[in-house]
């Protein structure tokens, strides 16, 4: 199989239609008005493409995979056309010494966007992740020196990721723990949505600055809202209808996944809106709760993934409507009894006194 430059299946050109579609999606994702689409498209078609250096450290390459294997080939091609990817370990044809030289050359030219994928181990002098004899920290510091801006893609690069889970044997951290003097933007997720990466890049190209972020360095346009607030199962949550176990009746009926561990109420991301893989799915839509993968330390704070905190009281127990119906029936019974007693006493009185009771 020819894996010479970019992955075989990805065409190098983008159809105009696909190009505008991706620009429109990105513009919408950024929360910009539709009038901005031409501006974004213009920035995206600027022949002066920004140079990008893409580093990999402690990771699974899932972020690159999800980006390039997006079923929509236009998206991957667009990203690859949008930027001049001067260095990317997994995708480059060069290997070994040649690859190292490419990285050096790209760094020498300077003024590139540095994309980091993967966590950076700091413990024991950083020996737990080495490439070409150099530690991840060394490579990152060297590459960050001349970078115009840094994008940390994925939860590993943003906050340390799975290897940073307690007890964090390698001392893994995110980029912002190592580099303090550069603008850094985090696009977390395990993996992050390719559209959010694209939108971040396009934002940078259109406005020549990084988008506004929340306290965890995530672009607000993508991570400003809770998953729970945009979830299509939310009405079931409000109604008190839950899947109690995977595969039970509630699960099959598409009820809320809260009780089987969904972390949507604690997680900030636009997953329910942007969705994945161009087939309009995301974890909750296919019946699995949200794991909270866009949140710092989610391996520690969101586990066990399929459980909730014990003994969380949910009003109504069986569901709001069902429980109200039960109480309603009981109240109706009491009313009927009260009316019956009233009528009974009236009739008895009339029989006793032989006249219509007045009071």
């Amino acid at each position: 199989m020819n894996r010479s430059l970019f992955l075989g299946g990805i065409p190098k050109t983008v159809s105009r239609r696909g190009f505008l579609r991706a620009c429109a999606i990105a513009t919408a994702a950024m929360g910009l008005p539709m009038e901005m689409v031409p501006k974004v498209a213009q920035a995206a078609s600027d022949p002066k493409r920004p140079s990008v250096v893409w580093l990999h450290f402690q990771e699974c390459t899932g972020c690159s995979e999800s980006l390039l294997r997006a079923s929509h080939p236009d998206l991957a091609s667009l990203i690859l056309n949008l930027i001049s990817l001067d260095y990317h370990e997994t995708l480059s044809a060069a290997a070994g010494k040649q690859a190292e030289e490419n990285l050096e050359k790209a760094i020498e030219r300077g003024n590139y966007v540095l994309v980091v994928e993967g966590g950076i181990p700091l413990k024991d002098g950083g020996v737990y992740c080495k490439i070409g004899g150099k530690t991840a920290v060394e490579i990152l510091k060297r590459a960050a020196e001349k970078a115009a801006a840094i994008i940390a893609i994925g939860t590993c690069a943003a906050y340390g990721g799975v290897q940073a889970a307690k007890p964090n044997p390698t001392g893994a951290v995110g980029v912002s723990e190592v580099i303090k003097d550069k603008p850094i933007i985090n696009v977390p997720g395990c993996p992050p949505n390719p559209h959010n990466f694209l939108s971040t890049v396009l934002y940078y190209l259109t406005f020549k600055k990084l988008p506004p972020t929340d306290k965890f360095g995530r672009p607000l346009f993508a991570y400003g809202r809770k998953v729970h607030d945009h979830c299509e199962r939310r009405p079931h949550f409000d109604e008190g209808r839950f899947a109690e176990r995977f595969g039970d009746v509630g699960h099959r009926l598409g009820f809320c996944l809260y009780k089987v561990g969904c972390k949507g109420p604690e997680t900030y991301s636009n997953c329910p809106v942007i969705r994945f893989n161009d087939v309009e799915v995301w974890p909750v839509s296919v019946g699995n709760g949200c794991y909270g993968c866009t949140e710092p330390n989610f391996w520690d704070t969101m586990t066990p993934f399929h459980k909730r905190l014990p003994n969380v009281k949910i009003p109504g127990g069986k569901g709001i409507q069902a429980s109200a119906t039960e109480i309603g029936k009981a109240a109706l019974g009491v009313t009927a009894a009260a009316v019956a007693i009233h009528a009974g006493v009236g009739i008895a009185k009339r029989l006793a006194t032989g006249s219509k009771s007045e009071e």
Partner: protein
Amino acid sequence: MAAYEKKYVWSVLLRLFHWTFAPSIFILIVTGLYIHWPWTNTWLEGSHQFTMAVMRWIHFIAGMLFTCAVLARLYLWFFGNKYEKVWDFLPITGRNVKNLISTLLYYAYLTDHHEERLGHNALAGTAYFFTIFLAVLQFISGLYLLYPENGFFVSLGSALFGTQQEARFIHYILNWYFAWFALVHIYIVVWNDIKNPEGLISSIFDGYKFHKKES
């Protein structure tokens, strides 16, 4: 000094109706307005907070009690005691029409003369009649909203109100009628209690009113 005699006016069932009806209206207005405008937005809605769910739950339970109370009052319209029956206070007899007009003048401070009634005066009675009528509409619209898939409530609700959204609109408008009614009702009751020594407020607790003895 006029002499007064103690008269039994309000039956146990009527007082039960009143003390189910009044608090349930208060709860329904508070929770209903939250459902209409969930002003806490998402800052209360998190992993262990179910503000909207709790509000709706309370609203529906209070709605059930409200419905039962209204049904009991409807029964008393026809089978209650003399003062509770609907023809005692509706302006459908000459005596009640006269009472209605004199009460209006009296409330407007235009006259001091008014006919003392042991039951409702015709103005209050008319207002209560109207209120119970609207309460029936309110619980039918509420049950229609609550059981949007139940054949009975769907046919009844859509015949009376139209679509779910139209029913919801009417349900919401009526919310303001009940809020207004509660305010005016409490004001007039207190006003009457101050002006007249008939023991109006205590009568809804113990059933007795004080009536001027003809001497």
